[in-house]
């Protein structure tokens, strides 16, 4: 983990309530897709954890949804503004288990970390299929970016305005895959756990105090004992997850 100042290069709305922010600064603490940063927002005590969508040697892209006062304030910050970030938090996705044809399943604001993951898997020569679930057409984002990378993209919408009508689980059975990675709302991930044909990795969200393992605010029970979502996760393998009802 590192702490540092990052300059906002771009902060624009890309879908309903969804913003894309590009930050320039040190990314050396980022080692895997699926890690997150914790952002200090003036006027709010706790930092806001946001997953990293993509990064390179000079900066990173975050895609976030406005869900409350903190993220709304973040969405109003102009280019040139500087933010204080804790960077390189969490374990991130492990691509070594993906085998030849991984499926990436994203729901809503859970989609962004899968972008960096798709990029890495494709660079490793894997055949990547992406399945994205949204409620309606106006909420869809990143689909073209995945296509440009060279991934096969399937979309489901709850209202049927684009792609398959229904949820990601309604489209999963028609896709062949060797392993899967997912990030999205808990009901979606729980449904995936019931119908998945292979093992996979899930990225979880939890309210956090610190994001670096000190406060024990985000603890969860796993098959291998108590773990922290912030440092042992946010990515957990299907074999270790206990699905609470």
């Amino acid at each position, binding site marked *: *983990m590192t702490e540092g100042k990052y300059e906002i290069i771009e902060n624009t709305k890309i879908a309903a309530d969804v913003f894309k922010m590009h930050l320039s600064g040190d990314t050396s603490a980022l080692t895997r897709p699926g890690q997150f940063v914790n952002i200090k927002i003036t006027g*709010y*005590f706790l930092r806001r954890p946001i997953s990293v969508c993509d990064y390179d040697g000079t900066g990173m892209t975050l895609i976030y949804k406005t869900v409350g006062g*903190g993220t709304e304030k973040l969405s109003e910050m102009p280019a040139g503004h500087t933010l204080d970030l804790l960077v390189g938090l969490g374990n991130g996705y492990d691509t070594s288990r993906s085998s030849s044809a991984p499926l990436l399943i994203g729901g809503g604001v859970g989609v962004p970390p899968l972008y960096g993951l798709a990029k890495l898997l494709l660079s490793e020569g894997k055949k990547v299929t992406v399945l994205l679930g949204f409620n309606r057409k106006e909420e869809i984002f990143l689909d073209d970016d995945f296509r440009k990378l060279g991934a096969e993209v399937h979309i489901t919408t709850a209202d049927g305005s684009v792609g398959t009508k229904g949820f990601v689980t309604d489209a999963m059975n028609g896709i062949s895959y060797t392993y899967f990675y997912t990030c999205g709302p808990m009901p979606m991930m729980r449904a995936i756990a019931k119908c998945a044909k292979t093992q996979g990795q899930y990225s979880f969200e939890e309210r956090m105090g610190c994001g*670096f393992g*000190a*406060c*024990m*605010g985000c603890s969860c029970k796993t098959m291998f004992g108590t773990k922290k979502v912030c440092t042992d996760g946010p990515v957990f393998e299907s074999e270790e997850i206990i699905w609470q009802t």
Partner: protein
Amino acid sequence: MADLSVMLSGIKLDNPIIPASGTFGYGREFSELYDINILGSFSFKGTTKEERFGNPTPRIADTPSGMINSVGLQNPGIDKVINEELPRLKKTFKKPLIANIGGFSVEEYAYCAQRLNTEDQVGIIEVNISCPNVHGGGMGFGTSASSAAAVTKAVRSATKKPVYIKLSPNVTDICEIAKACEAEGADGISLINTLLGMRIDLRTKKPVIANKLGGLSGPAIFPVALGMVYRVYDAVNIPIMGMGGVSSAKDVIEMMLAGASAVQIGAENLVNPYACRNIINELPEVCERYGIKKISEITGGAH
């Protein structure tokens, strides 16, 4: 340069800065960020006889100038702390530690204190009778003078180490409880623990915290803590470790002027992992600005 050293029950600390229990784990996360030997000491995560998972999540909520937590004394239990955490910590932290213990009965407090009595690394035992997040324990003991006295008496006879009782602000008269602890042989008082509070999620229209209520900490409670330290300083003749929303070197000075001999930093560590290091670095300059040559001499100076 100002002399930052302070004395706590015969133990000399290089400076008065002590990360508060529950915000610093067992030191591991922070020792990867900076050399934690610069600290005066630190108070480790509240430890109970048995391992505890703690409360259901969500356990954390943001508040104006602060946060609410309802972790519920998650800890690996006294055996693992003594057998695994302390030996690991010994390699990175060379100073006397503050061992924070929790409990659900007078016997449990005494048991934990007795187990820690033979641990060389432990300088002070801090007894948490004020956790607002565990039903039937913790705060229960801290809300009446008689039960606070009973815990103090039991812990006092279980260990030879200095015993500090950590008090709850969620009481009618904190001075009465502090006096009861002093009368039963407490070597010092730690205050304050968190204030009971709540946030409600407007989307779900339900409390954010799974346990509904939690403990409020952070800068929002600093004036409350300062007022209570000031009052307890007048009520007892034993040292006070002051805490509650302290987030800067200036806050440390204020807390000591109110009556604290040493100062604990809590919630600030969670949002600024370098908070204690920064405060220690800033203290000499702040002391100089306010004409303080020896920081230990300002304790209670506002009275």
